[in-house]
């Protein structure tokens, strides 16, 4: 993404937890991203939010620190780094609220052509009791998102 991003990111040695600091009018707010294995070992869940003093994650926080695009660009970079450490894996994410899931959908929509160059992006739709994975399309409300790094084919 062409947005400015936070350059200083700390990561755990297993490349599962990432931290950076949001800086804006509301001060410095520590952000943490954690990837957790789901019941399917091929899929990691992405959790993202503010790091509270006890180390727990608050993904309901609304900071209004005027750096939303910078944060989203940083998260996209972290996703890319995660895929470098865990090639071939999938990432699942959804918002902590319907509104936040919609915000993620809008962020993907705005940057779809650029993101599609590097990632395969799917949305999850509900169909009766099940969920179906469909290629991401603009204007569709999804329950969550599945992303995988596109593999590069060096053969000519």
């Amino acid at each position, binding site marked *: 993404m062409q947005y400015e*991003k936070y*350059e*200083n*990111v*700390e*990561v*755990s*040695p*297993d*490349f*599962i*937890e*990432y*931290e950076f600091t949001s800086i804006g009018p509301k001060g410095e707010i520590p952000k*943490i991203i*954690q990837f*957790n294995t*789901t*019941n*399917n*070992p*091929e*899929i990691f*869940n992405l*959790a993202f*939010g503010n790091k509270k003093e006890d*180390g*727990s*994650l608050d*993904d309901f926080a609304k900071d209004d620190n005027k750096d939303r695009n910078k944060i989203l660009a*940083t998260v996209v*970079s972290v996703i*890319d*780094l995660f895929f*470098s*450490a865990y090639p071939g894996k*999938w990432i*699942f994410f*959804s918002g*902590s609220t319907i509104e936040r899931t919609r915000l993620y959908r809008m962020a993907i929509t705005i940057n779809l052509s650029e993101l599609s160059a590097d990632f395969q992006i799917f949305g*999850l739709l509900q*169909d009766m*009791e*099940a*969920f*179906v*994975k469909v290629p991401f399309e603009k204007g569709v409300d999804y*329950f*969550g998102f*599945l992303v995988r790094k596109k593999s590069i084919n060096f053969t000519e």
Partner: protein
Amino acid sequence: MKNKDVIKKAESLGVKLKVGKTSSGKVLFPKKLEAANKMLDKLRIPIPA
């Protein structure tokens, strides 16, 4: 090798990656993971494990 690859990737993305942060060693948001599993377990065509 993994370290080198990821740090190299970070450089290409303009990120100064500092490896060595202490891992919490636990799931920081278990409800979120639980919700993800509920959805992913109901995928009509599961992703091959």
